[in-house]
């Protein structure tokens, strides 16, 4: 396919992508570095301090542990629902998406309500997790949140990618089901798994909300929380210099991870054969048994904490037992009152704009760099995701803060810079797996490049495009790392309000507002998920 440039989006698309990349990321980062260098070498030397080294080590530890655990869990869950004769598959698939709809700071907060000493479980059975505050709690809660993400990406890969004939051929060659998974299914799902692992690693290294809620009170400091504290609570120029230096270190570490992943992990599989995927090759009696651990995971990671969260929001005051006689709707009334109305509309507007624009940008890059030896463009976009939210926010503030201060546009620029990569990965994965023949057939039928894109390429990629849009939408609803640094009067998001209230120690209103945000997410996402087309095209209904 060396000279197969008909499939590529052409030079125009690449120029557009490069321009957008410069505007969204290049200029802000250059501004940041210029500011950092203006102070000389002093900030870099400050990195050698014990606390900076601790923060660096803690971030790497968290990222490695969370990636390993969540890839194991997510791949196992995907194989269980996609390749075993299980009952209640559809319910489970939808259930596995639910944890994704809960913002990470809400997850951290609701785990506290459920499992911390004095929480719901402590109240009812007298057992509590004293480790919840500190490194183990950070890793466990981050992993609980990352498993469904890995599951979503890998299961979609298995559903659209699955070539049951290849698996049957392995069985007919004498392979056990386990051999088939090891030698056929997982290698074929390689691109999805690699994409998911990279995503989780970068996300957990750059995670802010969960380490902030669960780590900071115990003195467990990661790079992101350290940067945030120096930025938010120290006014001296020395801590600002240290912020810049630490940011460069964090961005560099993440970049190394992505570079290594892009080199070592299987990036692209062979083109799909003409055999279409069937939803499952499983046969025999359908059983609930393989799904039991997944239901248990869902119950413990999501359902129980959410119940605890709702009870906290409903209960009249802190310390009262969460029984009906103590229930009130006052906290919800406050959460939905005039005080928080603008934040709700800001949040939704930002999420829709970010998802739509990031999808267009992601598709342009994928189609512009397909099979033309221009992988660098995709790598560049993925690399933008490595720029920690905190760093990106500071950069955007330095570059565009003058013109856009206190507006939603400032937040949107940062969101696009960050979430472009989120939209890029699923689309790139799907395009890599797409055979060139359907596109050739369109050209041979008289369709030009634009018509082919509209009538053939986009419809075939629709499941991946829908997944990409939904991912960015959810990321944007939940984003707090950047918005907490970029918001101004009138451009607060719900996430910012919730985190601020939580830190001020107002658990009841925090819980009520968390329930509202989660409900908004569910309300927005469930009709989208339940749309017959999407689930069917994913092979999921």
């Amino acid at each position, binding site marked *: *396919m*060396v*000279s*197969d*440039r*008909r499939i590529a989006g052409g030079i125009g698309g690449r120029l557009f992508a490069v321009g957008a990349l410069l505007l969204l990321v290049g200029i802000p980062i250059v501004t940041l570095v210029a500011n950092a260098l203006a102070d000389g070498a002093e900030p870099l030397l400050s990195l050698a301090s014990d606390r900076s080294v601790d923060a660096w080590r803690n971030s790497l530890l968290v990222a490695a542990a969370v990636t390993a655990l969540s890839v194991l869990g997510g791949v196992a869950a995907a194989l269980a629902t996609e390749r075993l004769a299980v009952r209640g598959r559809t319910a489970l698939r939808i259930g596995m998406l639910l944890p994704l709809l809960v913002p990470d700071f809400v997850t951290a907060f609701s785990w506290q309500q459920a499992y911390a000493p004095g929480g719901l479980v402590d109240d009812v059975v007298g057992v509590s997790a004293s480790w919840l505050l500190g490194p183990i709690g950070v890793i466990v809660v981050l992993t609980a949140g990352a498993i469904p993400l890995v599951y979503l990406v890998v299961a979609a890969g298995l559903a659209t990618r699955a070539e049951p004939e290849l698996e049957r051929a392995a069985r007919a060659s004498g392979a056990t089901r386990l051999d088939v998974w090891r030698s056929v299914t997982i290698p074929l799902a390689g691109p999805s798994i690699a994409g998911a692992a990279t995503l989780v690693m970068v996300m957990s290294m750059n995670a802010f909300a969960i380490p902030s809620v669960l780590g900071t009170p115990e003195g467990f400091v990661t790079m992101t929380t350290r940067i945030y504290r120096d930025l938010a609570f120290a006014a001296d120029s020395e801590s600002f210099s240290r912020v810049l230096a630490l940011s460069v270190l964090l961005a560099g570490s993440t970049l190394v991870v992505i570079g290594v992943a892009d080199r070592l992990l299987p990036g692209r599989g062979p083109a799909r*054969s*003409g055999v*279409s995927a069937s939803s499952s090759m499983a046969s025999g009696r359908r059983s609930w048994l393989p799904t039991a651990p997944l239901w248990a995971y869902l119950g413990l990671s999501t359902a129980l904490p959410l119940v605890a969260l709702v009870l906290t929001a409903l209960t009249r005051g802190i310390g009262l037992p969460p029984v009906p006689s103590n229930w009130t709707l006052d906290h919800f009334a406050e959460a939905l009152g005039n005080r928080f109305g603008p934040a709700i509309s800001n949040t939704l507007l930002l999420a829709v704009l970010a998802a739509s624009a990031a999808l267009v940008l992601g598709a342009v890059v994928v189609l512009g760099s397909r099979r033309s030896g221009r992988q660098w463009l995709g790598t560049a976009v993925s690399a933008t995701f490595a720029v920690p939210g905190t760093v990106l926010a500071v950069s955007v503030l330095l570059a565009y803060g003058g013109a856009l201060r206190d507006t939603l546009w400032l937040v949107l620029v940062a969101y696009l810079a960050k979430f472009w990569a989120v939209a890029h990965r699923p689309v790139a994965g799907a395009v890599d797996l797409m*055979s*060139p*023949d*359907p596109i*050739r*057939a*369109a*050209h*041979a*039928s*008289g*369709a*030009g*490049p634009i*018509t*082919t894109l509209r*009538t*053939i390429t986009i*419809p*075939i990629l*629709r499941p991946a495009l829908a997944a990409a849009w939904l991912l960015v939408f959810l990321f944007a609803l939940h984003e707090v790392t950047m918005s907490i640094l970029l918001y101004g009067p009138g451009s607060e998001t719900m996430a910012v309000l919730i985190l601020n209230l939580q830190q001020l120690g107002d658990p009841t209103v925090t819980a009520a507002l968390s329930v509202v945000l989660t409900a908004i997410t569910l309300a927005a996402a469930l009709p989208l998920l339940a749309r017959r087309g999407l689930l069917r095209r994913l092979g999921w209904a």
Partner: protein
Amino acid sequence: MTGTPAVLACHDLTVRYGSATAVDGVSLEVAAGESLALLGPSGSGKTTILSAIAGFIEPVAGRIELRGKIVAELGRSVPPERRRIGMVFQHYALWPHLSALETVAYPMRRGGAAPDAARAEAARLLDRLGLAKLAGRRPAELSGGEQQRVGLARAIARDPDLFLFDEPTAHLDTPLRAALQEELAARRASTGTAAVTATHDVGEALAVADRVVLLRDGRVVQVGTPRDVYERPVDVWAGRLTGPASLLGATILEPGTGDRPARLRIGNHEVALPSALDAQDVGEAQLLVRPDWVTLDGELPGTVEGLWYRGPHTDYRIASPGGRIDVREPGPPRFAPGAAVGWRLHRAWPMAAETGR
């Protein structure tokens, strides 16, 4: 060829994948209404030639003309959608999100037809091909043969100057294959549409083509009518590619000319051939012998080494003084393994003894 230009002309076509040369200086022409087969083993470059003609890949050297118009030469390439070619893909390449009717209407829409007109025309075409009942189905709901037929209907719907078939009947059963070939013959007769078929199946190549191009390692080995390439292959490789072939050691006593039969010595036996040999010299020679050029009713001695009953005919392997030869006779087996038989040679094609011609 004077006056009307050829539908397709390739001149010194060369295609490379990286440093590997897939097609190396291939020249060929297809006249209006003509059917050309590209016959070669996998890796011989036949699919690559089709891709270059369609415009999916660009040649690094040479020129492609469609109806006298240059569509590809170095640094210049007309995109596939403006080449008026109808391609049938080896693996169908049907669009997973479109029904058969929508698929067939697709090229008509691209040709400027209104949606309703395109759908009506597509429905008529499916009906004519006996596919009306498939109209509402998507590829996942079609068998392989049905998918290939919908792919053919899509190519016909393009109303092309030239059909390109990539292993078109590799996945079809016999009745469908016959129906497909009939439909193509009718199309060519009525519209003068030419076709290029890439295949590794010699039976298909000989049956569908007016001329056959033999390809090896991206180069043309021989071009000729099906009878040419079957009866007069240029070398042993070409002979084996174009059908079952045995090599018989013999001495040419008289090559014969015109109506004068040739005279040969095989072992200790002198025999006359009914026809002349197209040979320059007398002396030792390797003769290429097709199974249908021998009958088991002559004086030459032989022994049945093996036999295979095929239904309409029986294949024998005979050990003879000139070497082992394969023979095909109509009907059920007449001899048992080990039986002594007498055989007769009706035709042979000389290969130079050392070089394999």
